[in-house]
């Protein structure tokens, strides 16, 4: 895993987009990286384009300017590959942020949505009610129990180590009736409701990739029951969370990412959205010839 050193910040000239500059520069300075300001569309000022976009003088040594023309999302994604950007800082809504907030369909501008869905790099998303509170002191990593979201913990531990943050891990077991309704019966996190020990297994799962020092950043495990978004909001308030690191599947369409959408509407700290890395195939060639059941490992890695 690479440390995040190339930070992309798309700016459109609006104050809303500019809100991300503070934390982008703060992270770049701590991580020894650079901020790549991407200006898409509209003619850039020929002289001092960064100042024209509102970048204060003191930040200039860490910031590079890139101009592109075309569809903003496409250009941001192209710049991600071209410039080797490994973190994109983005406002949930750009210039059009004055739209009605309570409507879940409008919490995210179409550019932001396309970028978070398609980018390979994690996205630091500034929610609607974002308030800059630097430096951050603590990270919250909610875990759902799905193996696909392990990546978020690995990234959180690494960031915590380099940015000197403490890490809280939270798992919210949904209320019982809600569980019963789940389709297809894939209660992949069922085991994790039972005992905090299971949370350690998450840590164990990422631990070969994380150093002891990184793992020592974990300050607390929270096991909660109830409405996932509400419980997480409670933890964010109690722990004064500076950064929320969320593993997700990458689809923001209707019916998906409900908790994430609620959080984007309600929290004031940034959300680092980390997509699950593709799972590597894994096999241990042992077990009986006749039955997979007697050898649970030969079927591991499939559903769930």
């Amino acid at each position, binding site marked *: *895993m690479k440390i995040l050193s190339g930070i992309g910040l798309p700016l459109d000239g609006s104050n809303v987009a500019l809100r991300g500059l503070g934390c982008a520069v703060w992270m770049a300075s701590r991580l020894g990286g650079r901020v790549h300001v991407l200006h898409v569309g509209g003619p850039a000022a020929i002289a001092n384009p960064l100042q024209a976009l509102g970048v204060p003088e003191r930040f200039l040594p860490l910031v590079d300017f890139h101009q592109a023309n075309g569809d903003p999302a496409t250009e941001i994604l192209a710049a991600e590959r071209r410039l080797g950007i490994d973190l994109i800082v983005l406002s949930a809504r750009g210039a059009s942020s004055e739209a009605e907030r309570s409507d879940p*369909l409008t919490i995210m501008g179409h550019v932001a949505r396309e970028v978070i*869905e398609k980018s390979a790099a994690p996205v630091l998303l500034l929610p609607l009610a974002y308030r800059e509170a630097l430096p951050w002191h603590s990270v919250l990593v909610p875990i759902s129990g799905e*193996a*696909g979201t*392990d990546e978020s913990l690995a990234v959180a531990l690494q960031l915590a180590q380099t940015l000197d943050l403490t890490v809280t891990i939270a798992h919210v077991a949904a209320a019982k009736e809600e569980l019963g309704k789940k*389709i297809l019966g894939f209660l992949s996190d069922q085991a994790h409701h*039972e*005992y*905090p*020990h299971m*949370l*350690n*297994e998450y*840590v*164990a*799962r*990422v*631990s*070969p*990739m*994380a*150093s*002891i*020092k*990184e*793992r020592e950043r974990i300050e607390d*495990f929270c096991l909660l029951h109830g409405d996932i978004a509400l419980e997480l909001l409670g933890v964010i308030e109690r722990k004064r969370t500076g950064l929320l690191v969320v593993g997700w*599947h*990458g*689809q923001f*369409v*209707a*019916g*998906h990412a409900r908790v994430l959408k609620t959080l984007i509407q309600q929290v004031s700290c940034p959300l680092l959205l980390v*997509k*699950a890395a*593709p*799972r*590597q*195939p*894994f*096999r*241990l*060639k*042992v*077990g*009986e*010839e*006749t039955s997979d059941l*007697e*050898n*649970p*490992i*030969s079927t591991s*890695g*499939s*559903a769930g």
Partner: protein
Amino acid sequence: MPPAAAKLSFRAVVFDMDGVVTRTADLHAAAWKELFDDYLRARADRGAGMFEPFDAKGDYLAYVDGKPRQEGARSFLAARGITLPDGSPDDPPDAETIYALARRKDELFERRLQRRGVAVFDSTTALIHVLRSRAVATAVVTSSRHGREVLQSAHVTALFDVILDGTDAARLELKGKPDPDIFLAAAEHLKLAPRQCIVIEDAAAGVMAGRHGGFGLVIGVDRGGNRQALMRSGADIVVADLGEVDVDALDRRFRNRTSASPREPEDAWRVEQEGFDPAREHEMESLFTVGNGYLGVRGSLDMPLPGSQADLFVAGIYDRKQPALPYSELEFLTARRDEYAYAERVPLPFPYRLRVSVGGRTLDLVEGPWRELRRVLDLRHGGLQLFYLFEDKQGRRTAIETWRCASLAEPHLLLQEVTVTCENHDALVEIDTSLHDPDLADHDPHLRALVPESADDVELRAYATQASGYTVALASRARLSGESRDRVYVQAQGKAGVALRLRRCVAIHTNRHDADPIAAARARAQGFSWDAFDRARAAHEACWAEVWRSADVTIGGSVATTQALRFNAYHLRIAANRDPRTSIGARTLSGRAYEGHVFWDVEIFMLPYFVRTFPDIARSLLLYRYYTLDGARSRALSLGYRGACYAWESTVTGADATPRQIILKTSHKKIPIYTGHEQVHVTADIAFAVIRYFEATGDAAFMTEAGAEILFETARFWASRCVRKDDRYHIEAVTGPDEYHHTVNDNAYTNWMARFNLEHAGRMQRWLARQAPEIWKALRSKLAIADEEPALWAAVAEALYLPQANASGVIEQFEGYFELRDYVVPASERFHPPLRRLFESEKINGMQLIKQADVLMLPLLFPERFTREVLAANYRYYEPRTDHASSLSPAVHATLAARLGLPEQAQDYWRRGLWLDLSNTMGNGALGIHAASMAGAWQTLVYGLLGIHVGDDGPVVDREAGRRLPARWQSVELSLYHHGKRYPLRWTAGEEER
């Protein structure tokens, strides 16, 4: 195609139609969109909810893609919180039912199909042509009722041997995907088994169907944004287009996938892991440990990850407890115990550590990108091979192959060979063999690095433990092939396709055996001649050939069972030493669990194995108890008793190393541990093992020199530990093998074992006085045994209360057990480590729930003392109340079930024990393998399933064995030692012979 196209292993490919062969998905999506948008808008107009249009991409993929129409409609509406009645197929198109909506969608689709026609994916038809030219059959399936029409309209029907569409599915009453019915029907029409076929699908539900159907390989086709879902649903490979598929590469994947279970005889000599799963890496490190009993090195990657548990353990090297290290589970911590300098076995730095870079880029799994990783344990020769293939974004491939062993011929010596090949490019290759670990304090907190004087060409590292006064020295030499001097760091110009080979030897010495371990390690490394590398390897492998002569068990008819038995035998051998000052920790030299402590596991579970395979190792293990007698004596004294009371958990001196409490890492809750004070049965277990060893070997020298003293001192302990009440002796305030119940009186197992101990001490005293009067005299004087003492042992044994079978034939586990709240364990609560149980220990203490065989240990160890009826009654009573939270439990139940003529239960329990580590049944393999379970599985095979009886003429297989063995076994071959002679034994199905 290669010039002479090889025959392919798979026989057929079953294609999904929409999205794989034909481009109808957009027609379908558009039809669905029109249908749902009309419907949802009409609902919104009626005031039933807000209008939120159907997303032709997201909703289509998530809810309807690949499913039959009705299911698609139901699933999408459910996601919007809408439930409609199913209705019937005859509903008019405007009815508000599932059937009507589905029908309307069908009409909309048909209209579009006629208007626009169907396109096909040219890459797919090209693949089909190649497959057919190589004698692979093809089939196409679809849930669409229009399947045939669509294929005809696309002019591709001739490309398929079998076509099944929605009409066929309805006729054959096949369930929709993710049920595998339609794929299975296709395979059946092709007259092939599913495992001979490949499924190609673009929908998650279809991939799942292929997986559930047991198809040999499932390929997902991701036409955009669906890769994760396809992988999660179980696709072996996901491609963006079938143009990426090369038939020969596919064949390799197919063979790999279908050969997951070992099949060929040679597979039974190796355990192979392919790919990488961070969640299981620590467990793999345990399984792939190499060692020789003197030391063990976990099977970590040569280029360790930041969090690798890359430990070296040297038997007998312990130090003060470090509170950050786990106890038996990752979750369990124990506090410092500064009063004891040997509380915890010391993890030492990884001796095979490498850093490899090619063209300035570090090659390891963190940096990547890598394409292949394989780890192969060569059981026959006791070596571990690793194969890594890295490929960067420019397509430059570099292969690294390594081999390592811990010499069985020369226990202080490790060998390693590394081959680096730039497959298709030229680049500077750098290999750094330095053993320096910059994070020593984190990885190995017991150690303080010493700075030994450097020696030419030899890298010397030495470490001192914090409190126990041990020094461990490592001396490493490495040489690149073709060079004339050794270097710690080598660099060479890598040429495409040319392998660079480096060899390394590492010598390890400690001040346990050498006054100056640094000098000893240096001398051994310097004395090593590179010319002798192959000879050193051959000597090591010759020792392994010797091991297998004694330890091999082969099962005719089951390669996988042979493989598992050999894997277990391998681990038992590398755990064991001929150093009488050390014994085997519960998780051997393969992991950190239990702080490296030695338990009753050795005497009751492992010793019966070693006695019959490596009697000299069995002797050495018992001598460890002889050399720790002083510790046991001090312990008895400190507890207010006489003689020797062995520690429940023992390390160097024999003092008790059991923690007094466990601290849960997440909640910081403290749980008291009673076993250290109370699990006194270990003292009698050791005496029992001394007797059984003597019976099996006739080793009178051992008995006179060491065994008798153990027996006398332990008998003395019991004579003082038993309490006289009325006219009987009782043993109070103990914990039996079942650790869920502490501070109980008259635990049946403890009392039986104590009586055995007392009786046999008396017998052995008479034997010794007769056989070797001088030695008896000397011993009597050394131990100050009063004349009346042996009579006292006999008297206590005679009057010791032994719980007897009640009217139903059941022996009460301890006084008052039957009055506890009854509890029968549901299947879901079995075979887990005792996490929750410990959490609720006081509640459990009041229930009949037990952790492992307790009373049932008695018929296991004393089969001749219990009638079949009593055995059956106790098995029936206790088995349902046991949750097997101990890995020691399955083997006991398996053996008894075999004796009772319950072959299915016996085999089931036996498999659990046999594959306990290879399937990570307990979920805690990361902290080391479970040696007692391995030896227990061997005991079940020998004494339970085969029913081997050892008489004066040696071992004999029971004539009825065939009734208890799995039906597909054709033969079993093994050998057992008895009184110094090795007896080869063979059972063959159908002929009952020895």
